[in-house]
């Protein structure tokens, strides 16, 4: 199955009649599409391709519309790959990050849906594999679970303290801008406007710093465990 064909039965938008449209549009070049197959879904695809072309030139508004529009498509692809409902949003987040990183690889003369579908498919497989690895590491032994003594409160408390210390140490290693964003927005629970006042940075920079900080912390704490 080609990755580019995975949008064949998407139900994310538009009327049901769209589902009957041929798949050729999603496989690539616009020139190969017969006139009679031009449909609302293809127009939507072309619209998204135009938004991405504008985003490649730096148009933030087109980019925001495109990414918002893409969420439904990504979820549909992830569902088709067999990703569980509770993990769909992880696929969406990872795909959006990948789209942002590799947006220069999109060719506006080709299908945006096919391009996005291939990325979303890959990220869905990555999530499924990481879940598979986690499941294999976990022990499923009911007898052992029942017969194992509960840990006492002291050891649970010590564990919590240890986790908190690891987190504090990880935050300490962040670059100053990111550390500041975590401290102000995460630990002190200030609003964006308050944090902007305190730090003298604009809210956009704070959001970017917070997002990068969370990603680094996630990589560091989960990756290292």
């Amino acid at each position, binding site marked *: 199955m*080609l990755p580019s064909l995975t949008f064949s039965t998407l139900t994310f938008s538009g009327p049901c009649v769209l589902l009957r449209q041929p798949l050729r549009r999603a496989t690539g070049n616009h020139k190969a599409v017969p006139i009679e197959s031009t449909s609302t879904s293809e127009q939507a695809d072309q619209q998204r391709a135009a938004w991405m072309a504008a985003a490649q030139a730096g148009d933030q508004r087109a980019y*925001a519309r495109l990414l918002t529009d893409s969420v439904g498509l990504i979820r549909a692809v992830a569902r088709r790959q067999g990703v569980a409902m509770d993990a769909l*949003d992880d696929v969406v987040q990872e795909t*959006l990050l990948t789209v942002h990183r590799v947006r220069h690889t999109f*060719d506006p003369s080709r299908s945006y849906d*096919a391009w996005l579908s291939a990325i979303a498919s890959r990220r869905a497989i990555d999530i499924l594999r990481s879940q598979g690895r986690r499941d294999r590491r976990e022990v499923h032994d009911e007898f052992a679970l029942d017969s194992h003594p509960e840990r006492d409160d002291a050891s649970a408390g010590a564990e919590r303290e240890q986790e908190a210390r690891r987190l504090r140490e990880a935050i300490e290693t962040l670059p100053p801008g990111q550390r500041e964003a975590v401290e102000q927005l995460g630990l002190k629970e200030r609003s964006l406007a308050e944090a902007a006042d305190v730090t003298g940075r604009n809210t*956009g920079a704070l959001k*970017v710093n917070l997002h990068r900080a969370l990603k680094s912390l996630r990589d560091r704490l989960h990756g290292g465990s």
Partner: protein
Amino acid sequence: MSDAPRHEALIDVLGAELTPVRRLPPPWLRTLGWLSMVAVIAVVMFMHFGASTMVHRWNAAPDLGWAAFGGAITAITAALAAFALAVPGRSIRWAWVPVPSALLWIGASGMGCLRAHIPGMPVLDLHGANDCFIFIISFSIPLSGLLIWLLRRACPLHPVLTAVIVGLASASASASLLEICHNFDAAATDLLMHAVAVAIVVALNAIMGGKLLSRA
């Protein structure tokens, strides 16, 4: 359940980070870029060794000419396939594109061992076969490195498959370059050394290139 606020927050962040980007050139153009490096090496080798030995060898044994032709076409098609596979949304069937020429290359090389030897041309001993081995490996490493470096600017969603094709492209390009200075008739030892060298290059790419490309 959809986590819309979380997505909106991320979309806001990504929008704030947005900067104009230079679009990736099409795969065929990027292939030409890599091939131009191979062509420069070929020109330097022709200037040093000349083409007479190569032409004499091909005239005396057309199967060797076909093998060289297959090798050169494999280098071109494999590089094109690697660049195409590195762009999301392109068909995975691109991986099949270098297969026919690779079969011609390997098949015609194998046929060289079955026919009569070329009069007046030495048959390769083990020492000479070692030189061929070193030549293919040492040219494949920089050519693979360059190809992987170029591919990392794209987004290979099938990193190991792409890396295998990178190995095929660089090994076949190196074997084609070897033709220019390969003043020997085909022999089983020579063919074996070529095959081992190509297999090593492809395997190394699959292991190391796959890792490098998966982080791209």
